[in-house]
């Protein structure tokens, strides 16, 4: 009897440990009490490569800004180890830049070091980073977008360094890459090694007006018109189309003006094409195929495959469901339409629900629902060249910048720099970042989510002005998206920005009616081939393969 009980207890413990709810220290302690042998335990535990968490303390009153913290760290900080040392950080002038700046005085106080932050316009960030890497070597670390990674690995010795060695050293602030939802971890790694330190974790999911979809009147009208129940929320692309079309052209929010079904901005060079990428994923990515961009053997572009073509044709069907001018809107303008209450849906980043909570920015607080991007019943496998049928093929994405810092190989202060970056990545600070909208950070670590997934507390969100249910809905959907087994692969080869731009202008031209989807995609494929030739096909192929891990 007691053996059964202790086995149950052990199972609970093990489950809790494996889910990340219980710390390793606690698990070992409790398991030992139950009489589990060390040998057995060691088979259960994967060898943790990172700082000994048996030395982890949940918090130290002397260093309230880091939590959890190791004993070694506390000892290390006692004599202000970086006194007199200055590091140079290049960030873009944006929400994420502000997020980083917020932590500077706190880290400086704890460690005695100094951080010099240069804020650079987003248009010249790429140019400034690589000019510095190639000539001036002034900066120790840069805040990069995930799509810059390809460029970092072009030279024989990459421009950035692997932070693995630092992770093993317990005197640095503690954070654990294993806490990442795997899809997000990929963006910070290359060939299995971790190069980036946690900061932002972007993904696009579908936000919608749940109050509008829940309204009985609307449900009745929908059913009358289309013959089936109003999907709340839409789960397939067809449902999404129907909902968007249905809510376009009449006043469903009672302000006297006709409203729209969906908000999709499309100004060139303003990240509009991410909408297309996000919505197109389930047409091509599936359990049978992970390749969205290029053929892994020939490196020929896949962008004009039948699946991509159908995705674009369907995407164009959304055009009448939003204002005509939306094709020239910036991201902020697209958000404004939804936040002002005029659109029912918008597939976009977590900034949207964050702004929704601010009465100065929105009128839809408490009304926002969130769900994963609608899936398809048919996906095209561009490698085999055939359509596969599914009940529902849902694909996740990590589209966006996922802005974070990487350390320059030329930095003369790598340890100090790593210390600062890791400081911002400790659990306590990571949670602060993702609950406070001004940082623009979205949650990528399991612990940031609410139980049973993580240890986040809804009160922390409410404190920041969030409607508690809205926070839960948002995080649920966000987590669902990131944990979907099929993910749209993120393009991280040299020239990613150029490939994307060619797609961007052509999608924009199709939306403006200047060209047809097939011609546009074929033309895009040609343009991509030219880019590939310039960079060197073999090299691109190699880096493409490497970029998947």
């Amino acid at each position, binding site marked *: 009897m007691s053996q059964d009980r202790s086995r149950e207890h052990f199972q609970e413990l093990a489950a809790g440990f494996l889910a990340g709810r219980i710390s390793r220290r606690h698990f070992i302690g409790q398991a030992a009490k139950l009489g589990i042998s060390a040998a057995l335990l060691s088979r259960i535990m994967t060898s943790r490569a990172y700082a000994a968490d048996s030395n982890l303390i949940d918090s130290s009153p002397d260093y309230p800004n880091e939590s959890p913290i190791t004993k070694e760290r506390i000892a290390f900080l006692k004599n202000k180890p970086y006194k007199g040392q200055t590091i140079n950080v290049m960030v873009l002038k944006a929400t994420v830049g502000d997020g980083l700046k917020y932590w500077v005085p706190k880290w400086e106080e704890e460690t005695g070091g100094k951080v010099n932050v240069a804020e650079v316009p987003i*248009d*010249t960030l*790429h*140019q400034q980073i*690589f000019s510095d890497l*190639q000539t001036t070597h002034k900066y120790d670390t840069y805040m990069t977008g995930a799509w810059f990674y390809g*460029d*970092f690995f*072009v*030279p024989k010795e990459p*421009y950035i360094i692997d932070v693995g060695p630092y992770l093993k050293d317990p005197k640095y602030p503690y954070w654990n890459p294993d806490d990442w939802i795997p899809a997000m971890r990929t963006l910070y790694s290359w060939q299995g090694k971790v190069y980036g330190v946690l900061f932002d974790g972007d993904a696009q999911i579908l936000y919608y007006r749940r109050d509008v979809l829940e309204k009985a009147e609307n449900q009745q009208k929908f059913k009358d018109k289309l013959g089936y129940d109003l999907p709340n929320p839409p789960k397939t692309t067809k449902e999404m189309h129907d909902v968007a079309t249905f809510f376009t052209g009449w006043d469903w929010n009672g302000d006297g003006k006709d409203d729209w079904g969906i908000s999709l901005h*499309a*100004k*060139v*060079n*303003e990240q509009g094409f991410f909408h297309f990428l996000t919505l197109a994923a389930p047409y091509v990515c599936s359990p049978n195929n992970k390749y969205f961009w290029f053929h892994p053997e020939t490196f020929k572009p896949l962008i004009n495959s039948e699946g991509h073509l159908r995705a674009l044709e369907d995407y164009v069907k959304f055009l009448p469901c939003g*204002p*005509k*001018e939306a*094709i*020239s809107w*910036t991201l902020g*303008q697209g958000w*404004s*339409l939804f936040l002002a209450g005029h659109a029912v849906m918008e597939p976009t980043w977590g900034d949207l629900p964050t702004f929704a909570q601010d009465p100065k920015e929105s009128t839809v607080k408490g009304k926002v629902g969130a769900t994963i991007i609608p899936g398809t019943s048919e996906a095209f496998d561009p490698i085999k060249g055939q359509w596969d049928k599914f009940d529902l093929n849902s694909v996740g994405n990590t589209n966006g910048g996922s802005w974070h810092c990487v350390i320059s190989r030329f930095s003369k202060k790598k340890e100090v720099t790593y210390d600062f970056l890791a400081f911002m990545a400790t659990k306590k600070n990571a949670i602060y970042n993702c609950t406070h909208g001004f940082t623009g950070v979205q949650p990528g670590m399991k612990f940031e989510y609410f139980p049973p997934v993580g240890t986040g507390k809804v009160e922390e969100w409410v404190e920041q002005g969030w409607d508690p249910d809205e926070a839960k809905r948002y995080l649920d959907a966000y987590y669902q998206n990131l944990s979907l087994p099929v993910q749209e692969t993120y393009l991280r080869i*040299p*020239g990613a*920005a*150029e490939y994307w*731009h060619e797609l961007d*202008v*052509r999608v*924009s*031209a*199709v*939306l*403006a009616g*200047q*060209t047809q989807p097939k011609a546009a995609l074929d033309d895009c494929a040609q343009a991509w081939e*030219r880019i590939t030739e*310039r*960079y*060197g096909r073999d090299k691109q192929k190699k880096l493409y393969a490497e970029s998947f891990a």
Partner: protein
Amino acid sequence: MEATASVQSKAERGFKYALLAPAVIWVIGLTFFPILAAVHYSFANYVLGEGITGYVGFDNYARLLTDSGFWYSIFITVLYVGITVPIEVCAGFILAWLITIGLPGRSFFRPVLTAPLFTMEVAIGYLGVTLFTDQGGLVSALLGAFGIQIPWLSTAAGGLAAAMILDIWIWTPFVFLMSLATLSAIPNDIYDAAMLESSSHWQVFRHVAVPLAWPVLTIAILLRVIEGLKSFGLPYALTSGGPGTSTQLFSIMADLTTIQFTDFGRGSAMGIIYLILASVVISYFFKQMRKRIE
């Protein structure tokens, strides 16, 4: 006698070279390397992180010269300049004339009419987005009051038109200033004499002001054309070259290629082609205009 003559001309020579040399040396010194580098890159294949990976002869040039997108961007750039510059020149000159003939409140009008020159094109471009948008933009609101709806930012023609309007707003003061300087350098007596002769403003304008101001006006036109062909900040901030690439003026295309995509090979080739085309056109223009006065 001869001695003094040669001494004079030697002093003269020394003087004239001394005055000119610093400028010439400066320009050559600071532009030689960059232009040489640009020509060098134009024959190469440049890849970020690796530098020049190989030389491709005239490949970059050939690709550009056969790229319809390249020619389109040159076409709309020429169109852009062809419409904005004449308007700027006429408006700027007329306003300068009004000031010159003694408009009351000159000390108010002069600084006010010069002010737009100090704005940043990029900032005005952003402002333009909020002016021409049909979501609460001032222009749309005003036109809407008359029932007119123009799709400024969602079409190529609209986008170009909006950019041109703002361009005229910024650059008319340039012509205004230069015209002002030259019109006021003309002695009063000439105006007075002409006035007495014909006692018509229009005659004075046509037969005195314009001919006498023509040399400097030529410079103003030339400078506006040169600068206008390079227009970047304003149209970029307004439309980013979109929708598609339909408002992608030449400099926008060059910027994307060179800065965003670090394709120095193609970007440099673009620049050299542009340089040749523009130099030919401009020097022809310059010589024609000068012929009229010299």
